[in-house]
Each structure stands twice: as structure tokens, then as C-alpha cells.
């Protein structure tokens, strides 16, 4: 990704350590030149241009920036972009097929699992990791799995219902 630096007439910009990384995002192969201090969330949003991954608190609390790295849910504001070299990243944009919503997206629609929608991508990615590990979770297990994702609108009830709806749909497929 293109980075622009202040030219202060010194060698600082020339001394910027850059690394070339290769990764896949939602199945597409990518190569990027990144500075080590670039966060994964910024690589996704500004480098790749996928803005479905939201930046909420930027302090590892809210979980809005949750993505999957090699299938595991991580807070992308708390991982360096260089760390996904050779790995597979999945974001909310990877959920839907061309004309069909993912059962999680459908579930959030059916059960009214979102209001403002800011936390939703993170909720869905955390839920996707849960359902991959545990296709038939109890309500308690859903609540526990989403406890690293904050929602300030819904009170969580409908989010939990949405995930259970998606789990049932996925099991029936």
C-alpha cells in the first residue's frame, strides 16, 4: 500500500523500514509493502479498501475490528499487519456469496440483531469462529463467545438470537 511521509529534508523517510508481505483476504491473494507499525485493521481498511471492518475503541476492548486470521477471531487493531504474512484473513465482506447472504447475515436480519450496525461485523466474525468450532452452541455459549464484543444499542438479546438462528440454519444446510 502506498504510504506518504513528511519530507523534513532529512533521511528519516528513506530510513523507514518496509516489509513485503503476502496474504489472502477473503480468498484473494495479495501482496503489500507495509511499515511494521501498520496495524492489521489499517491494512484491511486503507490498504485493501475493505471498510466493513470497523475501528471502535482502538484499545482492544470493543471487538468491532474482529476478523479471522487462519480461522481464529482476533482484534485487528491489536495485531501488526506484518504478522499476517503467509496467513489467511477473513472479513465481513467475505461472508456473503455473490447473491446470497451468509446465514449469519440472514440471522441478524431475521432476528433484528442490529440497530446502528457498528458492532455487527465484529459480532458476525466472532460468531463465525464460534460456529466453526461449535455448530450447536447453547445460548450461554453464544453469550460467552461474544463477550469480547461490545454493543451499545441492542442489549445483546437479539444478537444472541441471531447467532442461534444462524446456527440452526447452518446445521440444516
Amino acid at each position, binding site marked *: 500500500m502506498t504510504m506518504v511521509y513528511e519530507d523534513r529534508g532529512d533521511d528519516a523517510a528513506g530510513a*523507514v*523500514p518496509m*516489509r513485503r508481505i503476502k496474504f489472502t483476504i477473503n480468498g484473494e491473494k495479495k501482496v503489500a509493502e507495509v*511499515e*511494521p*507499525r*501498520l*496495524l492489521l485493521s489499517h491494512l484491511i481498511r486503507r490498504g485493501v479498501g475493505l471498510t466493513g471492518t470497523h475501528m471502535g475503541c*482502538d*484499545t*482492544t*476492548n470493543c*471487538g468491532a475490528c*474482529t476478523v479471522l486470521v487462519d480461522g*481464529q*477471531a*482476533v*482484534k485487528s*487493531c*491489536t*495485531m*501488526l499487519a*506484518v*504478522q499476517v*504474512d503467509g496467513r489467511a484473513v477473513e472479513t465481513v465482506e467475505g461472508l456473503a456469496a455473490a447473491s446470497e447472504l451468509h446465514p449469519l447475515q440472514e440471522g441478524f436480519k431475521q432476528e433484528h440483531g442490529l440497530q446502528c450496525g457498528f458492532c455487527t461485523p465484529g459480532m458476525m466474525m*466472532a460468531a463465525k469462529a464460534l460456529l466453526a468450532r461449535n455448530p450447536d452452541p447453547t445460548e450461554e455459549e453464544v453469550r*460467552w*463467545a*461474544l*463477550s*469480547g*464484543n461490545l454493543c451499545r444499542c441492542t442489549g445483546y438479546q437479539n444478537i444472541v438470537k441471531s447467532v442461534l438462528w444462524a446456527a440452526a440454519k447452518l446445521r440444516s444446510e
Partner: protein
Amino acid sequence: MYPSRFRYEAPHSLDEAIGLLHDGGDYAKVLAGGQSLVPLMKLRFASPELVVDINNIPGLGYHRADPDGTLRIGALCRHAELERSDLLKGTQPAMAAAAPLIADPIVRNRGTLVGSLCHADPQGDWASVVLSLGGSVVAQGPSGRRMIPLAEFVLGPFENALRPDEIAVEAVIPPAKGARAGGYLKLERRVGDFATVGVAVSVETSGETVTRAGIALTGVGGATIAATEAAQALVGKPLSAESIGTAADLAAAAAQPRTDHRGSAEYKRHMVRTFVERILSRSDHAAERAA
């Protein structure tokens, strides 16, 4: 928020990593789970010149028991693996109780027990648990390995005993000499918050008699507190309401809580007493999720 500029290396062997640290000196940091280091770097509380990412070093993600029962936890063993570990559920009640209480589930996918010990946050949960079990950290440097008891490893808030060119490669929990019981209870305002109060208790019994006990406290002082006198009050006799009460009082006396936004000093001290009693009085010492 961005970290300040640093050089990044991701070596594939421990020797290489130690070499990089040796050359990097005081301004190098080891990156394992990154769930404390990356936020600190973003807030500019830490501005290392060199970050040595050990995530590509194979063979550090284990946790296993030796034939004699010694438990070894590698530097890249994530909290989530410990949370799902049958080995811990069967043999390490305090650890099994603590694992699901570390931060939140997504942080637990990345964060590591060894990293948590190195971070030495007075509000970190693992240090209390490992301290209650008499555990140690294995440090590897250019001249080999050394084992540092946790009581000597944590020097103070956010300060550990590692030399600049050493990596904490493993945590070690000694085997129980009899049956092991115990637990970890944590009072937190919400999931993922730091402990308002955390109490780790580990006891070993031979027959009815307690042969070893450890009690350690989280969040009620400038560093993790070993409540040694409280633990000693349990040893050499069967657990009884009287010995438990004495230990709980002594543990509360060992706490050095301060009044802050999480609660008053009196309240925190009271919770230390309550938690010690609760862990030791429970007939079922299985993992308990929340206080």
C-alpha cells in the same frame, strides 16, 4: 493510534531470536500474543526500537505434563488453549478456573500465559495463579537456560527479572505431592476488565492433611501479592472452618488495596477474605466462571 516506528524481525529459531535481542539491547521487545505489548506501543507507553516476533518459531505452543506431573507451558501457548484444556481441568483446578477469566475470548485467542507473566501487571491474573502453585519461568539467553521462581521473576509493577537478551520460553508448575485443590476467583466490573480483586488459592492434601498451600492476590497492591502467612495457616492440618477463617483473615491483612474507581480499599479487602473462604469452602473445586 499508531506505535512509533520500529524495526521488526520474525526469526524462525530461538537462537536467532536471542541473537537479535542481544544485538538490540535494552530497546528490543519480544512479541508473543501482543495483547498487552501492542496496546502499550499504540499508547506510546512502550516505544521499542526492535520488535522480535517469536510467533514463527516452531515448538513453543505446547502445554504438557511430564511423567512426574510437572506442568510445562510454552511461550506461545494461548489462553484459549488453556481454557479448553482437559489436562488442566483434570489436574490444575486453579489454572482451569482462571483461564476463562483472562480478558475476553478474542484476546484469549492471541494472548499467552508466559507473556502475561512477563508483562507483570499487578492486575494480571496468571501471576497470582502461578505464584499460588509455586511455579517458575524458564529464561533462555546466549549462555543457556535458567529457571526463575515466579516470586523472584516479578520484580514489581511491569518489571520482570529477564535480562535484555533473554526470552521467557516456558512456565513450569511443580507436581502436586498429593491431591491438588483450589481455585481462582475474580471480581470484575464487566467481562474483559482488569480484576478489581482476584484471589488464587492452591492446596495440596495428603489424606486429610494439607501438605502445601499457596495464596496469591491480584489487583490489591503495587504488585502481585503472595499471602504467605495466610497459606501457612492451612498447612499441617485438615481444612476446617477455623483454619479457613484464619487464612482468610490473614490474606485480607496481606492485601494492600487502594480506593479507586473500582471500589474502596475496605471493600476490596473484604472481597479478598470472602474469596479465600469461598474457594476453600467449596466442596466442588471445579472451575467457576465469575464471582
